[in-house]
Structure formats: structure tokens, C-alpha cells
């Protein structure tokens, strides 16, 4: 699955990093403590979080993430959007709760 497929299939709003919409999604991770994400997220994942701070972009680059999805109606800080655009890292928004969205992603084979 590509990042662009995620956006269409799950009705996500892409708010930054459109250049990266052709990335391959290699797995998934949920988490809001960035130290934990650095330690445990698989390389190439799509990452579900509610953290809006710009450090999420740095962590995503470190873990070569395919994309970040902010769940639960959360929105990124302005600096976060600017950085993600600079890096071509897709940030997408969902109104769904993290648990619900993660379940749907898992069901279509994002594992």
C-alpha cells in the first residue's frame, strides 16, 4: 500500500508533505511518547499519534516513516507543518480515535 492509498481509502486530509504520497507503507505504529516511538516503531511505518509538536517530524525521519496520521481531530503545530513540507513527509488528519483507525488499517493488511 502507498501513502496516497491510505489517504483515499480512509478519508484522511493530507495537510503537509504531499511530495511523499508515493511512499510504501511497510507497517504501523501507535504512540505519543516520542522516546517510545524512537525505540519501537518499525522502519517504514505509518505512525498514528496525537502529538502535534514538530519533533514528530524528526522522529518520523529517523524511523524512515511512510507518513504520520494525527488522530482524534488533533492538528499539528504550524512549525510541524512547515518542517514536514520541507521534508516531503505526509501528515494526514483523521477525526477517528486512534484505536478505531488502527483497527481498520490492520484489517486491510497494514501490519
Amino acid at each position, binding site marked *: 500500500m502507498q501513502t496516497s492509498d491510505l489517504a483515499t481509502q480512509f478519508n484522511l486530509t493530507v495537510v503537509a508533505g504531499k511530495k511523499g504520497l508515493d511512499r510504501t507503507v511497510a507497517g504501523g505504529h501507535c504512540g*505519543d*511518547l*516520542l*522516546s*517510545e*516511538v*524512537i525505540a519501537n516503531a518499525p522502519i517504514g511505518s505509518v505512525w498514528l499519534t496525537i*502529538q*502535534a*509538536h*514538530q*519533533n514528530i517530524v*524528526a*522522529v518520523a525521519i529517523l524511523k524512515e516513516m511512510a507518513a504520520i496520521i494525527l488522530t482524534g481531530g488533533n492538528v499539528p*503545530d504550524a*512549525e510541524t507543518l512547515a518542517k514536514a513540507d520541507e521534508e516531503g513527509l505526509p501528515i494526514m488528519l483523521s477525526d477517528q480515535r486512534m484505536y478505531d483507525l488502527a483497527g481498520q488499517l490492520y484489517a486491510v493488511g497494514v501490519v
Partner: protein
Amino acid sequence: MKLYRADMHIHTCLSPCGDWGMSPRAIVDKSRQKGLDIIAICDHNTAENTGAAIRAGQKCGLTVLPGMEICTKEEVHVLAIFETPDRAVMMQSFVYAHLPGKNSPDVWGEQIVADENDEVITENSRFLIGATTLSIYELVNKINDLDGLCIAAHIDRSAFGIVSNLGFIPEDLQFTALEVSWRMPLSEAAVSIPGISNFPCITSSDAHYIEDVGKVWTGFMLEAPTFDEIRMALAGRLGRRIVQKETIGKEVR
């Protein structure tokens, strides 16, 4: 110039997790007993017990600085310590305006506002243990605007610390200093936590129980035990400085 012992992070019975025994007066008495010269009262998202502690401190020659431990929307704890009660109250108004919710005393604990004679004045009904809606940038800027000391709290902890929650310390945040908790000696923190060598580091007790007051402390070489002198010591200006060696993991007497 002489060495002053400072415990810059002490909770009172106003923090829901603070013990009933943590009255402003009891904290001041214990601080003197432990040989501290300077303390800062830093309850969660409030400064309502700082006035009582300051007055109790004045009676026995203990410098008490008004402060708060504020929780950002990223759930990072930051200490904001001020020279005067006026400034602390301005900070508190800003925090209250961004702090949603009500406390459930059965779940989180009671939040007691007390005077300097151990009399209960009232109970605070705000959700003091909660997170504000302030981003860490908004908070740090506000503390600096009010000329406060802006200190990232317990950066070695696995929760509510800037490293645990944000992965690393963003370079563009204007912290006055970083606090390492009693759990980790400063010497160990300097090696094991990346990025902290750019900042002055203090250590404090984060006491919630009376016996923990002064459990660890930071030594400052100062002309006098005042806010301005501490600020100079944190910046390493005019001979004022943090005295590392004496502070590392050491109990006061």
C-alpha cells in the same frame, strides 16, 4: 561568596498528589532542619500556596521562591519560578485560562490551600493534575516574558519529561536550566541524556512527602540567597555558579 543549598522543586498539599503533611509551614520548618537556604514551591499548575510559604520562610530566614510545575499539552512538565508573588500570580492566571476540567478528589486527591499557620483556607476545585492546552513553545515564551526561570522538569523520567515525551530537547526552546530528578546523579545524566550539556543542570527533590524535602539539592555559589543571584549562577555570570561536586546524589546531612 558562599555556598547555598537550594531545593527548587517542592510540592505542597495543594497538589492532589501532595501529602496532607505538606503544609507550607511544615515544608519551611523541614527545609531549615535539613539545612536548606533556598526553596521553590512548585505545585501542579498553581501557585496558590506560595504566599503562605513565603511568609513562613520570612519568619525563619529561609528564601522561598514562588513557582509552579506546569503541564503542557504535550504532557511535558516545566518549572516556572519567579522573583515575586505578583509574577507568579500573572503566570497562574495565564495557566488557569488554559487549564480545562474539575478535580475529582476521590480519584486524584484533595487540593488544600493553607495559610502560614497551618489553617485550611479552601479547597481548589480545578483539575490541577491535568494538562494545559498550551504548547511547550507558548509556555516557555510566557515564562520568559514574565522574567521567570524556565526549567524543564525531571528530564530523566520516563513520563512527563521533555525527553520521554518529545524524544529529545528541541534546540530552539529557551530553557534557563534543566532539572534532573533525585533518581539520577547529575554526573550520570550528563553522559546518558543526549543534548543536556548545552544547559545548566540542577537537581531537586520533587518532594510530595515531608521526609523527601531536601533529599537532593543544588549547591549555588552566591553573594546572597536571592532570585537574581540564582539566575546569575545558572548563567555562570560574575563568579556565581552551580557547585556540581557537592550536589551529586548527596543527602543533606
